């Protein structure tokens, strides 16, 4: 019996990419027992308008959005199993971490953080996998 794949329909909008429209990606996809969440950047979930700022502020907005997405998909932040954080600069890791800690107060998920070149001038991208 093959596992079910489902794009979770959500009334949200991702920021436009360099190609001039939203990215060809679904924000939350269910596959089997897990929800796979696209790499999120700081933006208004309804309008898709980017909210660029400090690493701390971008992280905060991303995690506020993540909570909303997971709750709407029937999951929650405490069901997240793994997070990948991409930073424009690893010097910003403590700033990201301080904000991040407030969203996962107890028994935080596994996480990997690294620095890479990020698109669209963002300072941080957060991607995660959660239990459905």
């Amino acid at each position: 019996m093959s596992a079910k794949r489902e794009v979770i329909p959500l009334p949200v909008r991702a920021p436009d990419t360099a190609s001039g429209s939203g990215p060809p990606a679904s924000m939350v996809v269910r596959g089997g027992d897990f929800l796979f969440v696209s790499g999120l950047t700081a933006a208004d979930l309804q309008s898709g308008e980017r909210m660029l700022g400090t690493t701390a502020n971008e992280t905060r907005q991303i995690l506020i959005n993540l909570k909303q997405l997971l709750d709407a998909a029937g999951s929650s932040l405490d069901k997240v199993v793994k997070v990948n954080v991409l930073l424009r600069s690893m010097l910003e890791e403590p700033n990201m971490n301080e904000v991040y800690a407030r969203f996962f107060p107890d028994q935080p998920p596994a996480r990997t953080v690294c620095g890479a070149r990020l698109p669209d001038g963002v300072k941080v991208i957060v991607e995660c996998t959660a239990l459905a």
Partner: protein
Amino acid sequence: MTEKLQRSVIEPENPLLNASRNSNLPHVPGIRIGDYIFLSGMVPVDPQTGERSHGPIAEQVRVTLSNMRHMLESAGSSLERVVRVHVVLADISHMAEMDRVYREFFPVDPPARTAWSMQLRFGNGCEIECVALAG
């Protein structure tokens, strides 16, 4: 106590796309475990010759995703069963071009995706990795 899942190796039907084996590298093209298939990152390789396929980024992305389709189909899965993709570009300014081609391969209900830029080996313009549901 639930039974332990068994993992099995995925290999492409086209042996020219088996970079792990052909280059004697310590990885496999993909692993199937339970409901999931984890593929190793794929780079632009000409499926007719097994050679690196460079050129405009659009072509590199196209050949890479075609090869990914082949890899998944060899394993009894498909692009429609992909749940997560990581797209890495050597040059961040190629995002728009990449998106245009990427859309052709995932036109409806696309998977979750994260895209960014890093140094890539051997002059590759892109490297694409995915997780998919088994067939």
